[in-house]
């Protein structure tokens, strides 16, 4: 038996010998192919029937800028409504009360089960069902006056969003360990206080990435409100090309604005994620 501390011979010492770089031929080849394809596409568009001067002229036109502001206002308000509804419905869905539970499930079923554009048209045309609306004896008004494009778009987008957001919120709440709820109860908290102080702040960490997704979807979904005359950016771009027939140029203008807005939202989401990551290992150190 050899002594335990001696090492067997005839194995070379590899320390200090550098590791050769791999050539990665396929990466070079595929990158070259993609550059060629992009160049071809760019060349095709440059020679195509697009008047780029119209694109740059209308990119900062007053009507387009107003349109993008209206798009953002609607996206933010409808998303806020969607999040509030989503939280309330998710809490109802997880409640032990069977009435609240069924109402929540019914809401989600109804608004996820029908197309958004159909819901927008229904809200906008509510006057056909209820010519006058109001509280008997206190206040009444003609529905056509109340249900403006703005209000119809807000209700349509927000209530539809609430149905999707409630599922995101429910997933977030379910992701929090049951022990957290028990610990909150053990220090005398009721259900709602435990949700607000302990469960929701932890659920936020989980729900921000999917909510970011939903918000980006909302920015683009506001374009559907063009069918009910809400003056968002696509609607205004359409109005311009009805007059000057520069269809593609104005669609490119609207597309560039959507891209810009979505590009700004991504870093904002990162900031929000950091805020709610308090106490987790990754950021705590």
């Amino acid at each position, binding site marked *: 038996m050899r002594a335990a501390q001696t090492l067997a011979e005839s194995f070379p010492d590899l320390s200090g010998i550098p590791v050769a770089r791999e050539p990665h031929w396929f990466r070079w080849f595929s990158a070259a192919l993609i550059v060629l394809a992009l160049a071809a596409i760019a060349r095709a568009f440059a020679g195509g029937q697009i008047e780029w001067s119209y694109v740059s002229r209308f990119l900062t036109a007053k009507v387009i800028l107003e349109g993008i502001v209206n798009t953002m206002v609607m996206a933010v308000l409808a998303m806020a409504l969607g999040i509030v509804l989503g939280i309330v419905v998710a809490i109802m869905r997880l409640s032990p009360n069977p009435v609240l539970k069924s109402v929540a499930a019914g809401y989600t079923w109804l608004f996820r089960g029908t197309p958004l554009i159909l819901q927008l048209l229904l809200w906008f045309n509510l006057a056909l069902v209820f010519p006058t609306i109001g509280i008997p004896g206190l206040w009444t008004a003609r529905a056509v006056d109340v249900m403006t494009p703005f209000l119809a778009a807000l209700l349509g987008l927000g209530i539809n969003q609430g149905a999707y957001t409630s599922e995101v919120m429910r997933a977030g709440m379910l992701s929090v360990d049951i022990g*957290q709820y028990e610990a909150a109860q*053990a220090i005398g908290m009721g259900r709602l*206080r435990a949700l607000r102080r302990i469960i929701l702040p932890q659920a936020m960490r989980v729900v921000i990435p999917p909510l970011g997704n939903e918000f980006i979807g909302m920015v683009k979904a506001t374009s559907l409100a063009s069918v009910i005359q809400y003056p968002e950016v696509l609607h205004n771009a359409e109005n311009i090309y009805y007059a000057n027939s520069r269809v593609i140029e104005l669609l490119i203008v609207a597309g560039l604005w959507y891209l810009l807005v979505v590009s700004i939202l991504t870093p904002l989401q990162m900031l929000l994620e950091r805020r709610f990551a308090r*106490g987790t290992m990754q950021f*705590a150190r």
Partner: protein
Amino acid sequence: MTKPLVAIRSVSKHFGEFQALKSVSLDVWAGEVMCLIGASGSGKTTLLRCINQLTAIDSGGIWLDGELLGVREEGGRLYRLTERQIARQRLKTGMVFQRFNLFPHKTALENITEGPVQVQGRKSDEVRAEAIELLRRVGLATKADSYPAQLSGGQQQRVAIARALAMKPMLMLFDEPTSALDPELVGEVLAVMKELAQSGMTMMVVTHELGFAREVADRVVYMDHGVIVESGRASDVLGAPREARTKAFLSAVI
């Protein structure tokens, strides 16, 4: 003769087909340290959870400090208390969990002040001073601003004990407080519990730490299959068990 702090009478609990507690009766006296021992599934944790109503009992009654828990009797019928009333009754007990269950998004100090400030509505500077004192008592004065993820298991459990104490409970419940800890961290938690016992706190401890039970407990209760098999002075139950089942359990774990 005075009344016991906790009186448990004929308490039963089912989880579906499984009967976790079978007509259990037990008294716990003020100032007493009681250790509950037994195999997993014996009902000891369920009994503890019934006392602070994290688990609702099927039948029987539990009185804490003379007050019937979870229900009120009127005209020969029992009526369930509202969630708010149950939350108020829970304030009399402090609970320490096997898996600590600290709030991960709050610092050690915030974990301790959350209950007194949010639930009891006390002034935050006053509570904060008490919380710092409690952290000092559990040996973590320097960790006030650490988040749970930055603390070891033993440190987290000591913060959890401080969090429970901050509510000024009359009874402390410990549900296997050292079972989730690495062996080298068990001692620091037991030391805090021992200090607490010596300070006169009434404690019910579900534990597998027989050394702790022998040294600290006034009384040891051995449970098996939802019933109390044997109960008595720690030295008697652990040193000279009367029942065959207790003997078998003790010889299996030692």
